């Protein structure tokens, strides 16, 4: 018998496949381009491979088989809210009347799309206690940027241009300071207190007439609820600043507590986290930006307007009694954040998810997300340090620092070992204030059995680390490749395919 040669761990690049003469016939032949344009304007060659449809199907199917998604297993990636992505959402988003609708379709011929945007916007505003949202930004960081641009313009209009400081707790997502820098703000990093929270006394020390915005995540990235949020907001407002809510952790609060009621003036949502839009390998996202009443005029353009119909059917659903339009005429607006109105297909998905739940369902979603996180937390505390041993929200942090001292096994090694058990690694080394941090967010869509399995696997890995640390440090061993040489990738960047030298 011959040696098997199939290697499931590797596939050639698409550029190394294909043959001239193997093209698929999707469109008819055209006349030569030189019939239409002078040769000087045309490119010389188009060096792309021609592959049969079957070869393309096999190529990308094989690539998918070497990609881990929620559909394959538990994905406890902290701060990323990797919950189940219901397929009804995709079925709705890809309906012909949505997918093939051109963005410049006149409003009167796109009433359904506008109604989707309107219903989503109204639902989010109520759910989070904001006066209005704009669905324009494309992702969380994009919406953060929009919010800070709103703050900048608001202060400029009030003649308060001296306000150039943005306060960011040391547990904040990296996008917060990066977004602040893109608006020319100076970042003040605020240390967390012993309880892992922002201290009212500490923040008062840095507040002043140069304070523009205080950016907070609540629950924060340690998974802890900022229980002095009301006093913090009061202090920031007393200093003349604005409060910004990073909605990355909004899965913990729905139907329970609202950023608007906590005193936030600005916020964003990552609807691709909280509202089950598939992450798709890192995008596309969807980042509505919300504002309190005094900032509504500054929202990015366009916004959806609803005008009551004169002959509306009183038995219809509330939003069916309106005519909708896109409004670009907001003189104080910061302007558009991107081409066109929204990542509309994602607005469809988010709204479908809200329909699947209603208020009661969303409240339950957050409760069970918190239940799942706390359940794992108390069990993991039996064999790993949990630096903040108290009730958490949707996520919590554990630390492998003691384990590392004892055995040499780091957080990274634990994470890689999980991959060998068909589970995604938690977020690691974030937030930065927790050494050897593992940030674990199970989400509400996981069953107790899955959580028990994860706890059991992690326990076993920690025990193995104490018995045989080298084995854990060698992980992963069941994946298609072993640990990847990142240093070589960065030192000798190879970022694209090159044709073989003749």
């Amino acid at each position: 018998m011959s040696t098997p040669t199939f290697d499931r761990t590797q596939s050639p690049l698409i550029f190394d496949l294909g043959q001239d003469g193997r093209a698929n016939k999707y469109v008819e032949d055209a006349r030569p381009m030189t019939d239409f344009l002078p040769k000087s304007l045309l490119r010389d060659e188009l060096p792309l491979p021609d592959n049969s449809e079957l070869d393309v199907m096999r190529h990308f199917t094989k690539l998918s088989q070497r990609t881990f998604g929620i559909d394959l297993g538990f994905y406890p990636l902290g701060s990323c809210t990797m919950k189940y992505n219901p397929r009804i959402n995709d079925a709705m988003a890809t309906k012909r009347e949505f997918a093939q609708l051109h963005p410049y379709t006149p409003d009167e011929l796109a009433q359904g799309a506008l109604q989707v945007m309107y219903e989503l916007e109204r639902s989010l505003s109520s759910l989070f206690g904001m006066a209005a949202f704009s669905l324009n930004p494309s992702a969380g960081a994009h919406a953060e940027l929009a919010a800070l641009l709103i703050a900048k313009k608001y202060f400029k209009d009030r003649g308060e241009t001296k306000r150039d400081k943005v306060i960011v707790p040391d547990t904040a997502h990296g996008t917060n300071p990066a977004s602040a820098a893109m608006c020319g703000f100076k970042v003040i990093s605020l240390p967390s207190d012993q309880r892992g929270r922002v201290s009212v006394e500490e923040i008062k020390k840095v507040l002043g007439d140069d304070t523009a915005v205080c950016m907070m995540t609540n629950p924060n990235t340690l998974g802890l609820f900022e229980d002095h949020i009301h006093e913090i907001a009061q202090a920031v407002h007393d200093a003349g600043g604005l409060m910004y809510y990073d909605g990355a952790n909004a899965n913990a609060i729905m139907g329970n507590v609202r950023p608007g009621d906590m005193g936030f003036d600005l916020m964003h949502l990552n609807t691709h986290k909280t509202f089950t839009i598939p992450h798709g390998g890192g995008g596309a996202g969807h980042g509505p930006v919300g504002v309190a009443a005094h900032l509504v005029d500054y929202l990015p353009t366009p916004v959806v307007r609803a005008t009551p119909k004169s002959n509306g059917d009183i038995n219809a659903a509330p939003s069916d009694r309106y005519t909708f339009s896109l409004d670009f005429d907001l003189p104080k607006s910061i302007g558009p954040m991107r081409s066109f109105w929204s990542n509309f297909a994602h607005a469809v998905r988010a709204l479908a998810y809200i329909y699947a739940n209603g208020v009661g369902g969303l409240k339950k979603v957050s409760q069970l997300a918190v239940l799942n996180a706390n359940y794992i937390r108390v069990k993991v505390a039996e064999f790993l340090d949990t630096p903040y041993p108290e009730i958490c929200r949707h996520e919590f942090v554990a630390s492998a620092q003691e384990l590392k001292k004892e055995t040499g096994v780091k957080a990274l090694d634990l994470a890689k070992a999980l991959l060998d058990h068909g589970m995604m690694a938690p977020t690691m080394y974030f937030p930065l204030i927790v050494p050897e941090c593992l940030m674990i967010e199970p989400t509400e869509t996981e069953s107790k059995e899955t959580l028990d399995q994860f706890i059991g696997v992690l326990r076993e890995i920690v025990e193995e680390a104490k018995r045989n640390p080298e084995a854990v440090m060698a992980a992963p061993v069941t994946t298609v490749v072993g640990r990847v040489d990142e240093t070589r990738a960065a030192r000798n960047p190879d970022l694209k395919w090159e044709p073989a030298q003749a």
Partner: protein
Amino acid sequence: MYTPHTEEDIRAMLDAIGVGSLEELLKVPDAVALKAPLDVVPALPEYQIARRFEHFAKKNTGVDYVSFLGAGSYRHYAPPAIGALAMRGEFLTAYTPYQAEVSQGYLQAIYEWQSYICLLTGMDIANASVYDGATALAEATIMALNANGRKKVLVSRAVDPNYRAVLKTYCDGLDVAIDELPVTAAGTTDLDALKHAVASKEYASVAVQTPNFFGNIEAFDAATASVVRESGTVPIAVVSEAISLAALATPASWGAEIVVGEAQSFGVAMAYGGPYVGFIASTKEHMRRIPGRLVGKTVDKDERTAYVLTLQAREQHIRRERATSNICTNQAHCALIATIYLALMGKTGLHDVAALNLQRSRELATAVSSVDGVDLKFTAPFFNEIVVDVHQPAANVLAKLQERGILGGVDLGPWYPELSTCILMNATELTTTGEIDALANALGEIVRVHANV
């Protein structure tokens, strides 16, 4: 919905945690507690969700109109194989491929995307995608500002107005001024004005789109590019109709240092404006200034080929306020769709699509310009869009076309007051001769009626 907990599970888990109820678990201070009931859409069983969205879908009557709409979002043929592959759960439900060992497939696909963009633009490096073409221009402009430390930028007035508006949003944040270059009577950027402006050595970058917003192919050439580069200004090429890359001389060949664009045309649905997929490609010199994710090819510990996110020291999660951009989420799934599209089409298919776009848009130009009272506004060579002057308010003509079931194009008046009698019309490989005839006939009736009044 979508929560698997039984009552017994909840009780057992609460007991393990040591709290009495879910309410206790989520207790918040009274000062911030919820005070009034919330008003969101009602909970529906799944089949009724489907009915509700069918109700919305039926109100999007515009999808059944004959359409000549383009202007940054294009109707192209997308083989069903794209959806069959891209909607696989492994791709759809993956996160950013931080854990390379279990993300080799997606990482390779993004590496292939980067390679395709480099082959199409002729550039050295391409990133893993940004939100869209407009934000790509804004991010590229920031690259240029970081490269030379200047505080003003230059952009052609023939760049898509949405792109320019987004650029202004970003530049307002950075306190950077934008100056605009005029358009000639032929419908292309005034290159003499460009050369004059860059000679001041005040501008970090100059952005020129080709085909430009009017569909015209810019005459920007290597000689112009060298004047720009000698002034220390970064030449940025903008491409909003990516199919044109299959036909036209590459931006690299005429000296662009950064090429940004929108790849929606590569199989991504128009979807009422998004999500789409922007790209940024550049010369090697700008490698460490490029924003967003980059996938590199390397090896694993056993020297097997492997792919990984690389040069992450540029990014926000490492460098925070000193990052090259705040971008985190990109458009990976749309980039995957575009990559599959390019793989399926290959050079032959893509060439044919581009050639058909040239052909159909010329049929369109011939048909509408043969109508009395209707003229082509510009004389420059074009790709698949034309500016049609109807010599009366474009909005009126478009409204009358709409009554006849035709979306005739985009009214240029709101962005270019001097073109308020002009319509931007697009034809692609999907535009039929019958549709073009219907448009020409309708225009004939509408314009004739007007002439008789």
